[in-house]
């Protein structure tokens, strides 16, 4: 696959993730407004879900793409997954109780991970010397990262402002 369609695929995946969470968040917010309950809880959960889903997707894709096609395509794949959610993140933060510092920090960490994870894939490629083996190892490592992110999700719950 050429680089341009790959960017598109990653950006479309990022958009699909953001859209799914936006639909869920706006739907639950509408229900909360209709029932006169607090809509900030839905926003906090949406913010947490956006973070968790992107961490998982990033871990699974970036290491693999880094091992398969190098650092720059890995970085592009990670950015394509992270960036489309930013407008939804801003809206959910505006509606929620989470502190701006923690939300900004989470985004910075995601960007840092999108820079670092392809390097891990690249290092695997250079270490193992075989592309196929590096791709499989990168995918497995990415899955391990994603699984640990899911398992430890309670540890990085963002505090309220």
């Amino acid at each position, binding site marked *: 696959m050429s680089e*341009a*369609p790959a*960017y*598109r695929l990653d*950006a*479309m995946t990022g*958009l699909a993730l*953001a*859209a799914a969470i*936006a639909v869920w968040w*706006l739907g639950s*917010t*509408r229900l*909360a*407004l*209709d029932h*006169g309950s607090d*809509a*900030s809880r839905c*926003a906090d959960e949406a913010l947490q879900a956006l973070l968790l889903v992107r961490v998982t997707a990033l871990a699974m894709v970036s290491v693999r793409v880094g091992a398969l096609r190098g650092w720059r395509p890995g970085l*592009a794949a990670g*950015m*394509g997954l992270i*960036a*489309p*959610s*930013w*407008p*939804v*993140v*801003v*809206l959910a*933060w*505006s*509606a*929620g*109780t989470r502190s701006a510092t923690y939300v900004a920090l989470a985004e910075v960490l995601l960007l840092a991970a999108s820079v670092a994870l392809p390097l891990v894939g690249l290092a695997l490629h250079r270490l193992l010397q075989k592309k196929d083996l590096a791709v499989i190892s990168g995918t497995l490592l990415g899955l391990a990262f994603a699984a640990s992110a899911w398992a430890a999700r309670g540890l990085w719950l963002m505090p309220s402002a």
Partner: protein
Amino acid sequence: MSRWPWLLGLALCGTTAAIAQPRIDLEATAAWNGWTRPSRVTEVDIRLSSDIATRATLDVAGGRQVVRVNLDLEPGRVVRLQVPIESAEGVAVSAVSPAAPPQRRDVRIAQSESPVLGLGLVTGDPVQLDGFHTVALDADNLPRNALAYSSIDALILDESTLGALDQRQLRALLVHAAECGRIVLLNADLPVRRVLDGSAGCGGRALMHATSLADAIDMLKSSLAANRVVSTALPGIGELASPDLVTWNRVLIVVAAYFAAAILAALFFSSLPVLLLAPALATVAILALLHAAPPSSQLVVWSEATSGAESARYQAWQRFPGLARGGMRVPVLQQLASARSCDPNQPMRFDFDAGHGQAAFAEFDTRLFRQVVLCYSGSFPVARALAIEARPDGMLQVRNSGSIGWPGGVLLAGGLVHELQALGPGDDMIVDTRSGKPFRDALMRTALARTRKDGAAALWELELGGITDIPPQSNAWLLVSIPPS
């Protein structure tokens, strides 16, 4: 030799500067002799003075609410103001002036679990009422803000205490009477009786007149046993106002537009910077949009009176939909009385206008989709009188028995809603009881729920022309109940 005048001048300036530091005296006492009930509103009476002219900022903090007053203090003049505040065990009153050390007084407020009986008798006679906590009062213990009457559940006042009340105290007492507060007046003067009877709400059932203390206690006991006050709690905003979905619709459109634009960008541009720039620009645009056009507030006024009564009590809700996250400062509607936060858990700061004795601005934190509601309550003069006569053929004859005409409205009788024509004084109309409609909307449900099954009521939509800065989305209603004949 020539240095001496300079040194003398400097010394004098230093002395003057030392003298110029103002000394602020601050005193604070709570209404009702320091008693209230949990989750009610009480009042703090504050006296502030300074020995030189200075500006001072006074903060009164109780519960999650702060009332701030900016004052110009003149030497030798005591500024006295009464600030309504949410019931809390401790209320902190602090005064800060640019050149003086800050002053702070803590006012202890006792919260009674039992209903409170206020007893304003100059004789000091003890009164015990089963289940009530009695608080002995002198005239100065009675509040100047009608809202503070929520601290007590019944009140006995004798003629001397009533005569010692100032104009603001009397006005607050009148509003309390209009809001169906349970009051027994002991040997009140005829003019005072007339004024209070004229303004009493709930058909005057909660305002009683006695000639002796024993008589007053008996009246109070029988009033409590019969629970003759129809209702004191007005309906909530949830029943009357539909949820505000303007903000939600706006956000939905913005999100849909963003995703549409982002998909087009992903389809037509293969460059990574463009794919990154699109969400970044959209984020900035959304942030700007959130701060650009805050939606206007919504006002709902619900008022009730008994047919022929001279005053109606009202409750109003002003809802502020949030858009951007941060602080919001809103003007308090000056024609409506007793502004407060509807949610006692909502931290709020009021800027109090000492000249008018009421809050001028409210400040609170808000966020997207959050709806902060200010509550108002009070009474206003009204002149609507209806007489209903049931005819043998099952029809109702409705007559305007008042001295002025009324506009078209609806009549609620027998659990059904009928059209009520505009009628001039003395005019009448015939209503077919079988032609009523079982209305299902929230307004009619609320009105029907507040109408006695064996009685009837008329409902009119009110014009809010007298209120300045009225929000574009405003509705007001007046429900006049007609007791069963």
